[in-house]
């Protein structure tokens, strides 16, 4: 809910900066532990990357830390409809990675044997005939095989956001829209207040969950350096048609992806070289034509489908493409971060928020959370990718 126009003075046990999936989930789980919470959002709820993404989730990552985290996170995600009372439209359609080179296939096979199988999330390596059989609409020219992850799927980001939003309000959380944080008050090394253009909140804890804006915000407000950089990506959606693309397809060579939403729209992109920094939310013809060319090449029956709208959003990239959660001792007491999800924030955030709340309230660092502490950027002990996918 939006507040009034005057200056509001509140006091709360905790303040969350950002009302995207990470911020709202954090606020909700904090409130569930009995804390009073105020959420600051500089635009409208979900206006950042939470409502600009492709709406897909996966458990398959190129390293143990992320895969283990993802398995738990996806279990959490898929249970959200019941928890939130909003239908997240979850559907395990699977991910299909199309392979064009032998060494890529070998890397996937190795990952499957060494990582995914032992963790209980095996993928299926498909021959070219199996691809043709199961996905007859794909033009298999140049493709030597594919990897199918049946545990992966799709969701509807708007409904999940609304679920957390309404649940948080049910528990008395105050969400202030159009309220950009201007100052974090620190006294004798501890947070005492957070204020924005139209609100002042006395508090002891502040959690930064501001997505792509987190790095910049923590730097300007507290002088804290966190390597979270925005990278703009473009994406588009077509008019709706009857369902026929029954999975989420990724071309491992071109970074092209495509899938069909519940309503029948075909959604996808081809990821060109991303540019770092807060570029305006625009699109380019260069990208649009490249996307269309790849679409028509890979799924010729989509020649006639019409592009309905295009938009862009920011990935919040860290040096090891993994999120960061928790705090450092050198930061003022009461400052926490939950950000840097590097393109897989929506699927990780609900579970990550739950773990972070456990940390904030009980001081307990869950073993799954340990690899993602901000400490790693100082020690240089980054999470190593076996394969970027």
């Amino acid at each position, binding site marked *: 809910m939006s507040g009034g126009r005057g200056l509001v003075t509140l006091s709360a046990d905790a303040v969350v900066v950002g009302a995207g999936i990470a911020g709202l989930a954090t606020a909700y789980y904090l409130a569930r532990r009995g804390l009073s919470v105020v959420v600051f959002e500089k635009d409208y709820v979900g206006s950042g990357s939470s409502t600009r993404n492709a709406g897909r989730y996966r458990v398959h990552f190129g390293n143990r830390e992320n895969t283990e985290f993802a398995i738990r996170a996806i279990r959490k995600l898929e249970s959200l409809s019941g928890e939130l009372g909003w239908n997240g439209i979850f559907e395990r359609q699977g991910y299909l990675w199309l392979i064009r080179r032998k060494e890529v296939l070998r890397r996937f096979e190795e990952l499957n044997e060494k990582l995914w199988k032992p963790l209980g999330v095996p993928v299926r390596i498909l021959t070219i005939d199996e691809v043709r059989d199961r996905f007859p609409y794909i033009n298999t020219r140049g493709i030597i095989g594919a990897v199918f992850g049946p545990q992966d799927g799709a969701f509807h980001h708007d409904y999940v*956001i609304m679920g957390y939003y309404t649940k948080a309000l049910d528990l008395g959380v105050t969400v202030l*829209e159009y309220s950009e944080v201007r100052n974090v008050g620190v006294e004798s090394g501890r947070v005492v207040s957070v204020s924005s253009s139209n609100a002042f909140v006395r508090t002891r804890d502040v959690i930064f969950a501001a997505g792509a804006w987190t790095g910049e915000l923590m730097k300007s407000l507290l002088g804290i350096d966190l390597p979270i950089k925005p990278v703009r990506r473009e994406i588009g959606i077509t008019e709706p*048609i009857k369902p026929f693309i029954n999975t989420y397809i990724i071309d491992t060579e071109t970074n092209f992806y495509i899938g069909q939403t519940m309503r029948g729209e075909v959604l996808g992109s081809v990821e060109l070289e991303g540019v770092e920094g807060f570029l*305006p939310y625009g699109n380019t013809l260069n990208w649009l034509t490249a996307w269309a060319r790849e679409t028509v*090449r890979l799924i*010729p029956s989509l020649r*006639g489908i019409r592009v309905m709208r295009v938009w862009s959003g920011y990935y919040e990239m860290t040096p090891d493409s993994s999120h960061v959660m928790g705090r450092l001792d050198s930061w003022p007491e009461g400052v926490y971060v939950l950000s840097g999800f590097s393109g897989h924030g929506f699927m990780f955030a609900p579970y990550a928020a739950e773990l972070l709340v456990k940390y904030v309230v009980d001081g307990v660092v869950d073993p799954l959370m340990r690899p993602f502490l901000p400490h790693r950027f100082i020690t240089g002990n980054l999470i190593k990718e076996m394969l970027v996918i």
Partner: protein
Amino acid sequence: MLIALVKLIIAKAHNHVMSERPWIAEELGRGNYSVMRSSRYGEARGFICCEWWCEGYWASSGYYNLCSNNPVIPRRVSRVPSVFRRFASPSSFPRSRLLILLWPLVKGYVRRFLNRVSADELPTVSTKAEHVKVDCDVLVVGGGLAGLSVSRELAGLGFKVVLVEGEYYLGGHLLLDDTEVRDVGLGSEFVNRLGKDVENRVVTYKGVIFDGVLEDAAVGHSRDFTKLFIFNYKYLILAQGFREVPLVFPGNNTPRMITGLSLLKLAKWWGYRPRKVLVWGSDDWGVRVAMNLVKLGIEVYLGDNSVTIRSDLYRDRVAQSGIKTFIGMNIVDSKDADDGLRLVLENVRGRKAKVRRREEVVVDAIVSAVRIPVIDLPAQLGAAIVYAPELGGLVPRRGFTGDLGLGNVYVIGDSGGLLPEHLIIRQARVTALSIGAREGLVGKDELEREIAEFKRDLVNTSPSYYNVLLRLEQGLQGSGYYVEPNVAYVPMWASAGTIEDVEGALRSAGRQYLCFCEDVTLKDVLEAMRVLMHGREVRIKVLHGEEEEYRSLRLPSMERVKRVVGLGTGPCQGKLCLVSTNLILSFIYQKKPGEFGLPRIRFPESPIPMATLAGGES
């Protein structure tokens, strides 16, 4: 008979569009008004429009080229049984506990159920799509009165002008208008002449849509999808005119509702002749639509919930032409019956209304002549959109010259705010001279003189035009602090007038459709508002002592409403519903339209096939 034949031959020679007899005209002629089924409920959709921008609306349920000889009609249509409707409605679907529980079992069914076209039914797209580069000094978007007028002026100044028009003909609405237009003469004749003149002097692309501006290119496409245009211009002039939108009243989902321009095309070009119609909307255009239909021998009623006929210029002509009027009335109920569309109208019930009037009429169709400025492109390009009731509702904020404050983009004609035709012609001259002055081709004096004359004409026609343009210009170029008026009147909401009427209208909100693409009713939107306000009831009548609280209460934006109920997410991109919904909500809650805002209007203006974007290699 012979005359008719000669006329037909002339028409054929004149324009191939006019010679077609589209499928839809056949169906209407046969009395089949339920030509479409909606995507979600699968119920009959009676709203018909035959303009290029209507394609998105048809496409939402899998229809294509509806107003041509070869439409695409989906093979199979599903329909939600009435017992399930409450689960399927946009507001309750995501929150139904039962559906959440059963979701793993029903999701496949729900997915296949929506009425869409299959990939193999999509209209074919030429294998060779060309990417065409077009260079010019000035690109003019829209070939109606405004676009043609400004093109002629600019060509006269020596500019290289390119004009694009979405229709396959020039002249816009005026081409269908055979009435005497104030200070212009016979509308169709005037604009036809103007069109021919411009075509001789300016590069003109018909059947081409300007889709908007990307970071690295300004893009358009041809409606046959064989060409993607990349425009290179120094100045851009937006002259997309106005658009008639569906009316909102109880039971407006199924009955035969046709936009004024579409009906004029159907009647004048394609031979569909209803016997009796109700034209709703009594501004200049509405009255002229009615008079055109009378000329064709059609029995016409004219309705509006305004106090009087809104058109100052043509009010007197209504009585002379024998049109029966329902002014100051609401449509309180409507039903499709064997003999036509049965409408119940009641007078707007102010407390002071002395005479209660209730009428029942049966018509072949209801004609929506309620028009709004087309603001898609100004909004997409980032112009501020503000409320100016004198100019037809939501308009881009701009100066007297049409400058949008974006550097090189101008808006003229009705898309910058509805104005009488003779003022649009004047305004086109101002805009052209202003660009000429910037290029050093025109002296400042000449421009100043022209602006002064334009202002004088504005005041002489109606002081309110001058006042509002002055306010817009000062808001744009002065402090930037611009306060919108409250919404006191929503012309497309045919069931409201006073606070009492609003309360009455809300009782049937579940039968008033706002978004025909996604089957969103007013009730769905109000429910979304309630959820977003966390159950807090926002009252229509505010008691003493509550004003302060209500004044400072900030309601959720249209962007968030859109994300809850899907309003405006169909392939027409909200062309039919966004402005209406904004005005209706602003009216109900007495908030400024700017507070609700509009969802981001995104590229492209009209959907472009993948193959056209990809180019011709494959």
